[in-house]
């Protein structure tokens, strides 16, 4: 080797400053030196595998023996089948796992073995051969020389990305005015959700909360079939849900132009949060706050549904209400703004 250079020479002086101490002397386990301990460990491992087998049999027996479903067997008020299957299955795996670990740690050889690392890269001749094959391929295809072929290929490849984007159009019809309109119309009665019964102002006491829907949701034709049904019903229901609450009339601060939107302290607001559209009905009677369980947006129903806390950016849309000839609560019109979360084309005014 050439050791004329000054830097190399100085390094040579301390080639091995600290001697490799090597591995510490091997110590033996009780099972290595004591034949009794070894046989005991063997029996332990076999016992654990045996327990695993018993659990597997227990699993099979409880699968067939215990009844499930309504009126099935119970154990501590839990489904007996679920509990037994779970316990036996986990026992079968657990005992087998413990057995294998005991076997490995007590009986298998635990001699320390040293393995030298080798370089991660491939041998030099393999790398040269690969590069040679690649450049030969490029040369023979002539992709560098034939620019017409190359450019037309690139153009075709760019264009082939378009069909998947165009096919996105098939995801469904464009929303049209579905984002801005609900099925509330002038004079439509407000009905209790689930029950479908209309509400008189005198039904409600101060502090009452009614989860309500437009009456059209519950409308049935002569054959008892819903007029609105299927997916259409679900969409209509999810957009037009309202909460109706009654408070002291002098506690209400009506928004501008909303002076006649309430009836004797009864106000109706959209139930759909303006943040990401969760249904909200966590209502606090004394503070008139409506809280969204998803992200804690809080709206003040006494103050035009203003946001007083949380990530929602818009006040809760208010449904203008009045009473009809028969004295039931009805909507004055549809919501005057889109309900639910903001969207791209939404009028921000």
């Amino acid at each position, binding site marked *: 080797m050439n050791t004329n250079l000054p830097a190399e020479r100085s390094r040579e002086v301390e080639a091995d400053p600290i001697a490799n101490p090597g591995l510490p002397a091997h110590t033996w386990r009780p099972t290595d030196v004591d034949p009794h301990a070894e046989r005991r460990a063997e029996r332990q491992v076999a016992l654990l595998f045996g327990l695993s087998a018993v659990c597997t049999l227990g699993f099979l027996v409880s699968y067939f023996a215990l009844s499930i479903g309504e009126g099935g067997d*119970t154990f501590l008020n839990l*489904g007996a089948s679920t509990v037994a299957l779970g316990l036996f299955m986990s026992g079968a795996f657990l005992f087998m796992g413990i057995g294998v670990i005991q076997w490995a740690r007590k009986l298998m050889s635990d001699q320390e073995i040293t393995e030298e690392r080798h370089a991660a890269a491939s041998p030099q001749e393999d790398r040269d051969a690969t590069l040679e094959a690649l450049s030969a391929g490029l040369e023979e295809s002539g992709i560098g020389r034939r620019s017409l072929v190359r450019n037309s290929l690139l153009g075709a490849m760019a264009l082939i990305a378009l069909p998947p984007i165009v096919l996105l159009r098939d995801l469904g019809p464009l929303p049209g005015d579905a984002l801005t309109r609900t099925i509330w119309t002038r004079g439509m009665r407000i009905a209790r959700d689930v029950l479908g019964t209309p509400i008189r102002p005198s039904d409600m006491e101060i502090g009452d909360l009614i989860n309500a829907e437009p009456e059209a949701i519950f409308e049935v034709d002569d054959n008892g079939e819903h007029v609105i049904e299927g997916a259409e019903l679900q969409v209509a229901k999810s957009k037009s849900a309202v909460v109706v609450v009654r408070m002291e009339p002098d506690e209400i601060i009506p928004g501008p132009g909303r002076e006649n939107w309430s009836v004797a302290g009864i106000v109706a607001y959209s139930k759909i949060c303006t943040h990401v559209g969760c249904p*909200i009905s966590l209502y606090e009677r004394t503070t008139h706050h409506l809280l969204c369980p998803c992200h804690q947006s809080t709206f003040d129903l006494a103050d035009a549904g203003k946001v007083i806390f949380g990530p929602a950016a818009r006040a809760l849309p208010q449904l203008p209400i009045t009473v009809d000839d028969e004295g039931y609560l009805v909507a004055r019109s549809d919501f005057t703004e889109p309900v639910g979360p903001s969207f791209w084309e939404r009028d921000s005014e």
Partner: protein
Amino acid sequence: MVLLLLGLVISGSLYSLFAPAQAQEQQADEQLVAEGRELFLVGCAFCHGQNGEGVVTEDGESQLGPPLVGVGAAAVDFQVGTGRMPLTQPGAQAQRKTPLYTEEETAALAAYVASLGPGPSIPDASDYSTEGMSDEEREAAIVRGGQIFLTNCTACHNFAGHGGAMPQGGYAPKIRGVEPHYVYEAMLTGPQNMPVFSNGNLNPEAKRDVIAYLESLDETPEYGGFGMGALGPVSEGMFAWVLGIGSCVGAAIWIAAHTTRSKKDKVEA
């Protein structure tokens, strides 16, 4: 003329038949109200005022105790009967605890507060009991009650009635295993921050159905295994990942760190 005379005679004799009983009842009521007033002045008047008119703090901003005129006997029976009133200390929430008043004392307090102004009275067992219903009727009541519950109650009390957190340190309490008449009274009166579900809002049958649903939840065994407070898949997943997998990792580390070693040397055979 004869008819009128007959009518007068009949109504007169009917009155003489029922009047004494009524008078006696009235007397008992008055006595109960008087007893209730005594108890009220000692135990409740400090916050609710000597005539139940409520006490407002000096700055007029907050209430020491709300007025009790018109809250009715049902509110007293709920608040005092579940131990929520009298409060141990002011705070975000009135806690359920062992009642301080006996049943007779609670009844007296309720009678007194009911005499302050008209309000909901204590419901009768016949209002919420499902006894005497056929199996189909009960099944229908449970199904209807479940829908009403999921629409009106789930938001705060959890879909399985296990309760949940509310703003400013409050919480909606667990309503499983609560006596039916307290559930009924809570709907009727809206304790603390709970909205009211008066009889005009949810009629007595709807309330009975909700109670039937809650009872059916209590009766149904948890076939799926431990419910973990019905907090939902996210918290159950967290439990499995953090505690389940965590304890597996801990066990693996423990196993690897412990092996018995012997000081003896191996004797080759």
